[in-house]
């Protein structure tokens, strides 16, 4: 008996150890990434003032005269991410309301997985779709003269990409609204639409806001589709019909090029990466905070 118990105990400790290492791996990787970003960014900011980087209006690290003002990249990023929200918020919110308030459980059990398949399509396919379909067949017929690389097509496909995030999180938020509130509204002779838009939606508003913020953070970090669709032309503009460059697609451009290690041009991608990381982290933290407050409201 004692022999078997001993073996079982050793096995338990072994499994415990292996699982701990698995957990440690992801934490260590994150820490390592932050360390590399911080270290290389530190070298970059030895040569360039932080304020010149953050508020400079011209981004031309690879061309003479060199200039390292990141605002054009930030502007391009927010142009695409903001445009994506214009596409994704109405459709995502509508799908969420449909799934939670209108769809019979059978329809819901079919539609929700389909929505999640959207989230599983490789993002490069979306980029290709933007370049080969959205721009030539949708945008250019409507707005002749649009660049083949343009922010609008990127915004549309990134919007489609983040619809599942918004729809699924909104659906969760709506379903967390107590049934008793719906009953109270129905008993006051409300229609289904009035219950959805005037009781459920306002009650779940913080969950909806959190969903939008998380989707926005995803849109900011989106890389492949944007690189393919929006081009590589850093520009401080709000015109969606011209080529721009986002923070992510700049990092792709330099990573693929032959920029030598250790040069300031090479270090720019770590500075931009650090900024990107901090921006998405901020949005994620805000969204988590909003969600936590939302959970407390009904518990």
């Amino acid at each position, binding site marked *: 008996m004692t022999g078997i118990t001993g073996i079982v105990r050793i096995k338990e400790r072994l499994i415990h150890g292996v699982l701990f290492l698995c957990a440690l791996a992801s934490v260590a990787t994150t820490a390592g990434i932050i360390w590399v970003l911080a270290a290389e960014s530190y070298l970059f900011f030895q040569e360039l003032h932080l304020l010149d980087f953050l508020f400079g209006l011209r981004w031309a690290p690879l061309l003479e005269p060199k200039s390292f003002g990141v605002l054009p990249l930030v502007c391009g990023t927010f142009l695409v991410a903001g445009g994506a929200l214009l596409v994704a918020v109405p459709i995502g919110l509508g799908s969420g309301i449909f799934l939670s308030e209108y769809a*019979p459980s059978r329809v819901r059990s079919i539609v929700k997985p389909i929505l999640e398949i959207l989230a599983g399509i490789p993002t490069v396919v979306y980029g290709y779709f933007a370049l080969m379909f959205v721009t030539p067949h949708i945008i250019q017929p409507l707005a002749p003269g649009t660049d083949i690389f343009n922010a609008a097509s990127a915004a549309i496909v990134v919007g489609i990409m983040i619809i599942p995030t918004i729809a699924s999180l909104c659906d969760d938020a709506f379903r967390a609204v*107590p049934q*008793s*509130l719906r*009953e*109270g*509204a*129905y*008993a*006051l*002779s*409300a*229609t289904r639409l*009035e219950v959805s838009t*005037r*009781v459920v939606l*306002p*009650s779940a508003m913080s969950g909806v806001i959190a969903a939008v913020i998380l989707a926005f953070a995803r849109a900011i970090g989106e890389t492949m589709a944007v690189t393919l669709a929006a081009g590589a032309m850093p520009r401080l503009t709000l015109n969606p019909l011209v080529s721009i460059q986002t923070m992510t697609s700049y990092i792709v451009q330099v990573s693929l090029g032959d920029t030598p290690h250790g040069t300031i041009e090479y270090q720019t991608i770590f500075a931009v990466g650090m900024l990107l990381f901090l921006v998405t982290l901020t949005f994620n933290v805000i969204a988590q905070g909003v969600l936590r407050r939302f959970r407390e*409201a009904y518990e």
Partner: protein
Amino acid sequence: MVIVPETISGRQEAQSPSRMTPPALRLRKPSQPAVTSDSVIRAEGVTIRYADFAAVRDVTIEIPDRQVTAIIGPSGCGKSTFLRAINRMNDFIPSMSISGLLTYRGQDIYGPKSDAVDLRRRIGMVFQKPNPFPKTIFKNVAWGASINGYRGDIHELVERALRRAAIWDEVKDKLNQSAFALSGGQQQRLCIARAIALEPDVLLMDEPCSALDPIATARIEDLIDQLKTHYTVVLVTHNMQQAARVSDLTAFMYMGELIEFDATDKIFTTPSEQRTQDYITGRFG
């Protein structure tokens, strides 16, 4: 117990004399008030099923105007299911089906021309747990009127409803505060105000005091007594003392069947059925 075949649809035969005198009528005793002429809600052989389970079986009852009718019975006896059938709140349960005839002032509640949204405008409801909206006190009361396109003076309407619900003096200085800031008893009276702001004809109350303390309960009971001057009240409760205190008529349900329906005094002093006697003396339930 049930002799009337459930396959007979009451809807078509509702007016035929044979349907008016089903075997269930033997439950009505001579002392029962003559209410036929001014009954508001009338059920004829109503059976309500959830999938295969009959939660309410062949219930025949006439609920009179401007009176408080209490429905008592042990948990699971079908009293809430019956109550929620009156304003079609069971419609949201996909497996629910109803047979027999249920009318509100002569209109078939489940008839093809009946509209649940219109019906609920006339038949308000107060629930077991207070369920104010996460809005201000004022907006809670004004909500029903605002979605129904009310054109009059909304402030006057809110004040009148809050006064009738006996909560005006407690909230008049904080109408713009969240309804969640009120105590449970106040929230429940706010929900009553919200329901009567629509000027309904009938008020259904589904165990309105079961989540409240004795003092809040006493206030709601006083209020129910006042409400019957304006509204027909149907009250479901598992609290027999409450039924005895506030109601004019009491129906006792058991295992989905209506066992006895009579004047409250009679039910609690000299019930005709042994099972009613057993229940009110605490032998079961």
